[in-house]
């Protein structure tokens, strides 16, 4: 028998084995980034992690949660982090989400930054307060035809220290055609004093991944991961008159804000005007509670405005677009000469329109605050 029959396969296997060995050794050397130091806020906190993973993931594994709506897939642009050390140029996957100013400032998407060397980053102080909670759904209630009130019970002994107006990220598991867990942000509608619980108002958005899940599948007793608190929308503690405008699920932060003021006994200390815009009567909710507040607290005023009241609504309140009603009150009804602060929560279109009205009637941009994650 020709010796080649044995030698040939042996030779080929020998060569491929040798090549495989070289590749595996190179892999061990090249892909092993060793330990990487993450220096946060100029030494305020120092973490040592195993290199090679994205910054976002490494941080969350160490308990620091940078906001993210897409879980690190690079499709939401929310996980921006300012990098103080040199980590090379921006990747093409990052540039669509960064403004020119951010690019110049070395702001990166932390889900796209692979940790290869020691890195220095700068994150807002408030992020140190963010934690992950494995909550359980205690109650789900319909407040309107498309808004559900979701109450989450936090694990025994844990609590979230947040300021009214902030939001949390809730995560839903894969379902139907959705193959991965998805996170979305919702304002907390419960007051901070309500320890051990977090409440959210979730409005069904057609085609929305998380809202569809909450409305169709979420059950009481089910587990839900919550990461909180995030956000800079909160009441400025001054004496100025608060002009609050919200619509639909935009009520959530205000429910928290008002309840919080009641809990702290300061509800009477400022003039508060709350404008709630909706289309028909069936889109309004918490009316009883808000009207009760109005009768109980002299300085709290609640104005609901329907843009399209139906005959069966028998609506006696204000009608028209919320911006028109707001304008009317700013000029005619509210006391003149007082300093006014604006608090807005709603869609970008509504925010722009309300801000225009507020500016038109004497309010300044530096005193108008809005929920930015919209």
């Amino acid at each position, binding site marked *: 028998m020709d010796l080649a029959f044995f030698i*040939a396969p042996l030779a080929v296997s020998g060569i491929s084995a040798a090549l495989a060995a070289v590749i595996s050794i190179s892999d061990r050397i090249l892909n092993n980034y060793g330990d990487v130091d993450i220096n946060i806020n100029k030494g305020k906190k120092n973490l040592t992690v195993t290199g090679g993973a994205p910054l976002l993931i490494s941080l969350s594994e160490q308990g620091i949660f940078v906001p993210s709506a897409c879980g690190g897939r690079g499709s939401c642009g929310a996980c921006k982090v300012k990098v103080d050390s040199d980590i090379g140029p921006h*990747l093409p996957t990052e540039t669509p989400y960064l403004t020119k100013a951010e690019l110049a400032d070395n702001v990166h998407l932390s889900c796209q930054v692979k940790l290869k060397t020691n890195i220095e980053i700068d994150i807002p102080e408030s992020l140190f307060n963010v934690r992950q909670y494995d909550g359980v759904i205690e109650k789900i209630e319909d407040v309107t035809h498309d808004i559900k009130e979701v109450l989450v019970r936090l694990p025994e002994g844990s609590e979230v220290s947040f300021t009214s107006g902030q939001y949390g990220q809730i995560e839903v598991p894969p379902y139907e055609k959705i193959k991965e867990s998805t996170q979305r942000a919702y304002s907390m509608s419960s007051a901070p004093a309500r320890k051990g619980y977090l409440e959210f108002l979730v409005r069904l958005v057609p085609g929305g991944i998380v809202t569809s899940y909450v409305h169709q599948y979420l059950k009481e007793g089910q587990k839900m991961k919550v990461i909180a608190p995030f956000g800079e929308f909160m009441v400025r503690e001054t004496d100025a008159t608060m002009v609050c405008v919200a619509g639909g699920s935009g009520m959530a932060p205000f429910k928290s804000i008002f309840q919080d003021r009641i809990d702290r006994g300061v509800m009477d200390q400022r003039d508060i005007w709350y404008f709630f815009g909706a289309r028909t009567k069936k889109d309004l909710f918490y009316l009883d509670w808000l009207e009760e507040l109005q009768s109980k607290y002299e300085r709290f005023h609640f104005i609901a405005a329907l843009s399209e009241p139906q005959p069966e609504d028998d609506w006696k309140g204000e009608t028209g677009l919320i911006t028109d009603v707001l304008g009317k009150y700013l000029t005619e009804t509210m006391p003149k000469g007082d300093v006014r602060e604006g608090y807005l929560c709603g869609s970008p279109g509504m925010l722009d329109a309300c801000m225009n009205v507020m500016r038109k009637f004497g309010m300044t941009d530096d005193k108008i605050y809005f929920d930015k994650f919209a």
Partner: protein
Amino acid sequence: MNSAPIIAPLTLLFASIFTSNILLANFLGMCSFIAISKDMDSANGLGMAVTVVLVLTAAINWVVLHFILVPLGLEFLQYIVFIMVIAAVVQILEMVIDRVSQSLYMALGIFLPLITVNCAVLGVVLFMQIRNYAFVQALAFGLGSGLGWWLAIMLLAAMRRKIDKAPVPAGLQGPGITMITIGMMAMAFIGFSGMLKVQ
């Protein structure tokens, strides 16, 4: 067995860059050439990568050919073995590039592993074998072919930048005008032919 051609390695180097340019004279290595020449930086990066691959594979394959395949009488295995070595070298190069410059890694995308099936690479190795080069000649040939390929892709990238701003008729935009340009570049390089010998 034939002996190696009597050509100085330095001559071979210049020959493979200019007169026998692997891409413009032999038309090997076209697909990534056309795709990546859209952008100067990635063209530069890919040119560098291809050169490194060519030098390494020329060297390693020469050693494997002359110390393993020929002594054991297994020349018929050369196609399989050469491709395996090329694949391994490209794999390691990928890891190195990912480590050193992630933006280049992403810019090259799929064309980095595609170097494995780039006919220029296998072509150079087989030419080396057919023309029976000695080791230093093989190295010079590999290096020269790589540099020639790099030169060609940089030239094309530079030209495409200008062409992008020119009023090209709609039907010829993109691949059409690129092919015509490559053809004209090849004709220009034919002017060099015959000046230096490669075999």
